[in-house]
């Protein structure tokens, strides 16, 4: 019996150790980047000397911002993410409401048609969508980056599910009181569905803040380039080379706002991503 107890204890210690080693290994990427972004550029990295320098400095951040217009990239990313978010919240709420509450001819067929967006990911349609954007005269605008995402099959699906869970009695009471459709939506359907909207919003923000390939294709100048494209251009600047503290500072610049948001709302983010996989 004692040996069984001991074995259990040893297993626990081993598992704790394994967890710690793996988690540290996984986290070493971001930890290194944060540490080195504050390392003086006068102290080049070398074998066995890749972490802290002798002092901490903010100079790398200033230098990075002077070498590339990160302020403009920030503005563009915020505009793109903001446009998408506002448009999506409106379109998925309206469509979700129609599919959950209303009866109309072709409802099922149209719903399945919209789900096509989940079956053929946008990334695969890069080439023809680029042609469409050119034809619409939107090339090299922030709108070009955002427009294809103004409607979301997944968001529509989520909102429909949320609305279907609203008790029928509540809806009937609203109808009895003579609520118009938008009063029903606003006062009865929406309040209990806010958590779903928030979950969708967080994953939408993350997804579009991080997007790279589509903006790479439809942007050409700083008037529309988001942070991700700006960062890659920055890493390819001739004068950067292997100046890691500078690269680390630029990288942290790009990820900081979202990362801080994530640290504060960790639980909500995880729930949001748990939802976002359920497609």
């Amino acid at each position, binding site marked *: 019996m004692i040996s069984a107890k001991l074995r259990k204890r040893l297993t626990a210690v081993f598992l704790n150790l394994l967890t710690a080693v793996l988690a540290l290994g996984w986290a070493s990427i971001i930890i290194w980047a944060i540490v080195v972004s504050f390392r003086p550029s006068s102290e080049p990295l070398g074998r066995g000397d890749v972490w802290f320098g002798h002092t901490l400095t903010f100079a790398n951040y200033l230098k990075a911002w002077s070498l590339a217009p990160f302020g403009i990239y920030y503005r563009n990313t915020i505009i793109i993410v903001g446009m998408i978010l506002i448009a999506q919240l409106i379109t998925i709420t309206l469509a979700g409401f129609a*599919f959950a509450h209303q009866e109309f001819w072709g409802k099922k067929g149209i719903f399945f048609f919209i789900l096509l967006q989940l079956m053929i990911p946008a990334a695969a349609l890069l*080439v023809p969508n680029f042609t469409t954007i050119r034809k619409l005269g939107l090339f090299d605008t922030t709108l070009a980056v955002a427009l294809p995402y103004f409607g979301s099959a997944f968001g529509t699906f989520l909102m429909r599910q949320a609305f279907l869970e609203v008790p029928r009695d509540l809806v009937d009471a609203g109808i009895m009181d003579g609520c118009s459709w938008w009063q029903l939506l606003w006062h009865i359907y929406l309040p209990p569905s806010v958590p779903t909207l928030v979950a969708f919003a967080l994953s939408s923000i993350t997804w579009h803040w991080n997007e790279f390939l589509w903006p790479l294709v439809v942007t050409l100048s700083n008037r529309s380039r988001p942070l991700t494209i700006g960062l890659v251009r920055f890493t390819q600047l001739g004068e950067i080379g292997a100046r890691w503290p500078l690269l680390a500072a630029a990288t942290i610049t790009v990820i900081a706002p979202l990362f801080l948001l994530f640290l504060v709302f960790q639980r909500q983010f995880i729930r949001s991503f748990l939802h976002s996989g359920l497609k």
Partner: protein
Amino acid sequence: MSVATRSVSRRKAPNWLPYLLISPTLIIVLVFTAWPTVQAIYMSFFRQYLNIAKFRTPTFIGLRNYKELFTSPDFLQVLKNTTIYVLGTVPASIVLAFLFALLVNRAVKGIGLARLGFFYPTILPMVSAATIWMFFFTPDYGLFNTFLETFGYHGPENWLGNPHLALLAVMIVAVWKNAGYLMIFYLAGLQNLPEDVFEAASLDGASWWTQLWKIAFPLLRRTTLFVSTIAIIDAFQVVDHIFVMTQGGPSGASTVLLYYLWQVRFEDLNVGLASALTVVLIIIMLSITVTNFVLSEREGA
């Protein structure tokens, strides 16, 4: 639509409202999913090079783009790389995700930090993660080599410039990025398992390992099916880090399907071939989602 109007108007005024409410979503799906699919199929039957004056206007050439694709050594290399990439990263991410979920699903002090450590790559842009990984793969003083040396590795140091290691390097980054994301589904699955299953098992003296493989894993079969689908679809779509780390090189060693599509369209300016590639990619994506749908229906029954 005319049918709707007729049948409804017999009772009262036609109800256009639902159509109005779904129209924005419907228009986006029409313009940016349905139309481009048709467009890609159509254009794949034409020859059009944007960089050669006499081929700038599309000419109908039947199936020749597909013939060119499936006989081109470049494309066969890309297919091989993509297969290795998908078959390598997907199982690795899933096994790690399951392991991570088991490890952080224990009531131990500080376990929240570990969960954070595994999950945070999910919210980082792939290009910024790749920029940092560039350093880890740097020859000589890069942390990845230093790490491997402690296990006695003294092989080639320049991973990204080595045709035998470049693909593996971008696969490692993909696994690092994805495992924590997939972990949360197993974590949710584990927390939904009835606890008495484990209690009964430990009373029977089943070891932790047996509980894991004989009890937890089979019970989480649906989660695994679902997680595999996400992982496979992601593996085809996520190529951002390749732009930063290898640009598909050296000599095509780390070029995968979506990256190749980008090259053919935006570097070679070969619209016809890029359209044929798009069709291939659409067929792959559709068969994955449809297979998953059929499988999960059968599981659910």
